[in-house]
């Protein structure tokens, strides 16, 4: 009975005072929101402006570009620069555009990504779960490897590749990319596998699964997010690589980035800004698509891998 009277009393107090009740109201146009979204919009525009200029310029003809209004939209849209950039632009003696470089880059990127991820994931798994003697030392050496400047190693690697007899071939470049991806990828995988419950690994051992059995049947199916992260890192990294491409390949096996540079920086003839812009966008398209397709998984994977170190 005491409860009932208390409840009614509470109700009367609430209606009488008409104080705050229910969810707190939110103001869309509060000063905080204006400031927040305003800043975000300005920053976004600032970032998008160069891309806008590139797209617009690539769709203009040369006479229109010479007018000098780089921000104005094209009066006459033409796709000719794109076709030229892809198929007929000349670099040295070859006049088949970026298409040659594109396929070279594909032939470099795909095996490098697969090879480096395959090795690094097994590395990370072994370091996280099979605590062999000297594992920590091995891990530290590997991580230190990530901090050594590339420039130091370029010439020794040239000699090594020459001695093996694969200097200037795509195979050589694939091997170089795989080696240089190893420290950061191993770190990534090791941290991810360390964050998995150890009892799962123990249960699998009691069930009789061995090194590869546990890796392939238990760990692999559970680690899709981290594989996506690794694939994105490697695809964009290797696709965008210029230094290794220019050092370890020959003109007919140049990756797309090197070829792009040769088109844009050619000293003979007129500067064809529209062709250059189109070629640049074409080259950047692959990483761009990778980001758009896998953005969500990427963020999730990075977060999952970062929790435990």
């Amino acid at each position, binding site marked *: 009975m005491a409860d009932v009277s208390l409840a009614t009393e509470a109700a009367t107090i609430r209606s009488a005072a008409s104080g705050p009740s229910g969810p707190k109201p939110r103001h869309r146009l509060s000063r905080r929101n204006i400031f927040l979204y305003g800043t975000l919009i300005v920053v976004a525009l600032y970032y998008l402006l160069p891309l806008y200029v590139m797209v617009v310029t690539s769709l203009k003809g040369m006479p229109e570009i010479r007018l000098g209004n780089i921000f104005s939209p094209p009066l006459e849209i033409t796709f000719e620069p794109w076709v030229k950039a892809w198929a007929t632009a000349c670099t040295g003696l070859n006049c088949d555009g970026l298409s040659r470089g594109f396929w070279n880059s594909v032939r470099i990127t795909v095996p490098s990504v697969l090879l480096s991820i395959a090795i690094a994931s097994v590395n990370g798994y072994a370091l996280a779960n099979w605590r062999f003697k000297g594992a920590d030392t091995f891990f530290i050496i590997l991580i230190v490897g990530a901090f050594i400047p590339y420039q130091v190693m370029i010439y020794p690697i040239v000699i090594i590749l020459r001695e093996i007899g694969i200097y200037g071939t795509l195979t050589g470049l694939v091997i170089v990319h795989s080696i240089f991806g190893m420290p950061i990828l191993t770190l990534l995988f090791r941290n991810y596998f360390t964050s998995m419950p150890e*009892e799962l690994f*123990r249960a*699998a*051992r*009691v*069930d009789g*699964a061995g090194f590869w*059995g546990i890796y392939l049947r238990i760990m692999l199916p559970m680690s899709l997010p981290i594989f996506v992260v690794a694939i994105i890192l490697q695809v964009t990294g290797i696709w965008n690589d210029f230094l290794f491409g220019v050092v370890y390949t020959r003109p007919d096996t140049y990756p797309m980035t090197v070829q792009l540079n040769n088109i844009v920086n050619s000293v003979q003839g007129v500067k064809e800004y529209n062709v250059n812009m189109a070629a640049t966008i074409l080259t950047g398209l692959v990483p761009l698509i990778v980001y758009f397709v896998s953005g969500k998984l990427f963020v999730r994977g990075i977060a999952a891998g970062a929790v435990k170190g």
Partner: protein
Amino acid sequence: MAAAIADPSVSIQDLSLNFGSVSVLQTLNLDVAEGEFIVLLGPSGCGKSTLLNCIAGLLDISDGRIFIKGKNVTWEEPKDRGIGMVFQSYALYPQMTVEKNLSFGLRVAGVPKEEIAKRIARAAEILQIEPLLQRKPSALSGGQRQRVAIGRALVRDVDVFLFDEPLSNLDAKLRSELRVEIKLLHRKLENTMIYVTHDQIEAMTLADRIAVMRGGVIQQLDAPQTIYNRPVNRFVAGFLGSPAMNFLKGELEAGDAPVFKADGVSVPLGRYQFEGDGGRAARPCIFGIRPEHIALGDAAKAMPFSAESTVEIVDPMGSDTLVWTKLGGQIVSFRVEADKTLRNGDAIRIGFDPARASLFDAETDSRL
């Protein structure tokens, strides 16, 4: 210590384990009889789970030997030891259905399909998880998950079951339900079971024998009742029993009629069973008496020892009530029935039978 077991199911001989310079287990010996339910009990960090992992073969030991079913398995892989293990976090493979979880070990071992189906059907029937076979672990409740985890050990058709705190992740109600189920399972299968827990109620209810551990050493290995009534040292006495045993500091006066003396209290120890010749020498000691062994009022007068006191605090716990008072200037708690109405400051008489008490050396903490 109990007499040596003739044909032990699991035998651990002089087992030591060091992590670097830290010694986790020290020359530990343990024999488990065929079909026995052994509970390893102790606080966190006492080495009980480590010992279990050593038996399972998940940790490499530093010294000693492990026999399972008379076979030296010290260097064997976990899968070749004839053990099944149940983990605290269930450790179910998240991407596999319950059925695939159960059959994983058998598939790895290359057991024929009909045999796998037969064993899964049997395990599922025993544990009543038939309707769950096609579900993923994420779609199961905690109790169901732990049942599946037990099933995974069951289908392997092993001699020895190892449980690593299997009920710690469950709520109190489920825990007591599954505790009964594990007990029934043991009666049905009659396998050897080694069970690690820090929960004394699980230990008391499940075990044939309890091994109380501290600092990597087995303090006492005996039947639950013996451990409860005749703890070998103060640690074991204080670890088992809830509410905990009362400890009174005082002096032992030796002689033909030994007496325990604390500030204004003297308890005759004529009825107390000393270990060996513990009662011969006078020394500082600690007198332990369990709250449920202290009587109140008229019952106290009938006891060999009784004294006047006043109520300090009353803790109602539902089934009974815990009363705090003072004896010889030291705080003592005892249990009374829930319908006894006592108030703070009430004058009371409490008493007990020294035969049910435990006396420990103040220096060594071991039983006198």
